[in-house]
């Protein structure tokens, strides 16, 4: 019985991580095709991707879009959560629902909708429009995470701060935001991760400057190549770094 459960565990983790292991392994393939048999270890493909200006600028674009759109999404989500948690507004239940609603809409639909809207108002496609798209998908997430963590404890501390003479902006900066720091960081890092990996919206809304997932897709169109494995491994490495950063900043604080 015990052996069986270990086997199940191994199978489950294998199912999750085997694709990643294969991807990373064949990024070191000393040959032209990232398929078995494994012919030996080389860092040639990594050298090539780091020398590839288009890939490197796409990587930089991705980082800028991820950090910028997440910052905006977290700020807007925080302000919306504060307003809906602390003030009696007409139809707050509806507003809460409306803000969270995009979570249920597919990225493809959001991307198409934005594409049509930007065409209509004459806004040219660029990294800015990709950023706007990523704010649209991450704002509901940031709102939901931060809203859920606003409890009576912050409410009481905010009242005390006001009683001692703090204005609303002072309450937000000095009391609410620091008390909610763990969930604000969690929302920020999740947003960065989602934006970093996001393909469809970035594909639809970008034009000359593209993000990394779009550039990788461009590379894939010309066939399999260990270079795609190498850049995929770099993406994976950065995602892992984000998760570790999340672990250290957010979950450590809770202890």
């Amino acid at each position, binding site marked *: 019985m015990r052996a069986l459960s270990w086997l199940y565990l191994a199978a489950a983790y294998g199912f999750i991580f085997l694709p990643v292991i294969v991807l990373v392994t064949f990024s070191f393939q000393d040959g032209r095709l990232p398929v078995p048999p494994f012919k030996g270890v080389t860092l040639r493909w990594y050298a090539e991707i780091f020398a590839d200006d288009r890939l490197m600028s796409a990587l930089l674009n991705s980082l800028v879009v991820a950090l910028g759109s997440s910052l905006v999404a977290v700020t807007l989500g925080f302000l919306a959560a504060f307003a809906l948690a602390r003030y009696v507004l007409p139809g707050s239940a509806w507003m809460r629902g409306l803000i969270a609603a995009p979570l249920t809409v597919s990225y493809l639909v959001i991307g198409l909708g934005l594409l049509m809207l930007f065409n209509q108002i004459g806004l040219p496609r660029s990294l800015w429009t990709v950023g706007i798209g990523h704010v649209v998908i991450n704002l509901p997430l940031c709102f939901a995470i931060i809203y859920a963590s606003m409890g009576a404890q912050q409410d*009481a*501390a905010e009242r*005390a701060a006001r009683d*001692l003479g703090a204005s609303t902006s*002072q309450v937000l900066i000095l009391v609410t935001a*620091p008390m909610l720091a763990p969930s604000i960081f969690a929302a920020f890092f999740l947003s960065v991760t989602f934006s970093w990996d996001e393909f469809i919206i970035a594909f639809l809304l970008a034009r000359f400057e593209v993000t990394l997932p779009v550039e990788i897709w461009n590379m894939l169109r010309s066939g399999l190549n260990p270079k795609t494995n190498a850049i995929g491994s770099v993406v994976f490495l950065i995602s892992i770094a984000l998760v570790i950063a999340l672990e250290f900043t957010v979950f450590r604080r809770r202890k």
Partner: protein
Amino acid sequence: MTSSIAVENVTMCFDGFDALRDVSLEVGSGEYAVLLGPSGCGKSTLLSILGGFLAPTKGVVRLGGSDVTRVPPAKRATTTMFQDYALFPHMTLAENVAFGLRMRGISADIRRKRAAEMLALVGLPDDGAKKPHELSGGQRQRVALARALVVEPEALLLDEPLGALDLKLRRAMQDELKQIQQRIGTTFVHVTHDQEEAMAIADTIVVMNAGQIEDRGAPERVYNAPATSFSAGFMGEINMIEGTGDGSQVSTGLGHVPSTMTGNVQVAIRPEHMLAGGDVSLGHATVEEVAFFGTFCRVRLNTDAGTLFAHVSPAEAPETGTKVPLAAQTHQIKVFPS
């Protein structure tokens, strides 16, 4: 600085429910007033109105004579000590205490000095660098007090400040609160449902029930000569006996009691006056049970007017099953319309 604080004809409605009905109250400058009543009586609502967290539906709030009804808490010269203390968990104790000074734009040097003085006043002189989670409940309560007092409010409002503490600590802290209030001379308005706490601490007790003030006065007066039967019942244990008055005396199951009241009335006698003797004889009773409470014994009596209770000193406790005479002094017997 300290000021009187007052409400005039304040009514507070919440969705058709009247939490306060036409309440007027003045607390004098430097006075320690305690709002006492059961939960739901409106005492916390009244405190929120005094602090500016609620605007009354009708009526006026005055601080030192000027109308502050529409002044928000941040601009009002009162501070509140909240029930759960509401300390800022991400700040040190010194930063917590100095917060109000920081909001007033006072320089960091002076803030540090004043915060240290306040922490010393409340008995935590060496703990300025600690965070709130390192403290016990009683210590947090002291920090909350220091934080509210450092800005030198004209009146300090305390919302069940001792409610979260265990009984022993509560009794110790109530003495300390009273001492600090006497030392700094600020007007204190304190909300509680604990009548022992109210009697120990207050210059003036304000008894509230169902959105109205039932009684207001010094603890001794409110205890010994309550204005209403509710006030009598809430300020400690009391025996209530049904009776009928004819204008010169009241007839009860225990005999006649002098009173000018007419019609159906309730006669109220504190348990410590039942067996102590006096000029008004109340017949005899059978002792059913004697329970020991340390400083006194509580005696259950079977009388012609039903079951009543008496408190006597343990040395004078009667034997179970014996018959004892009941009597009280005229001034110890209160008669209320029923």
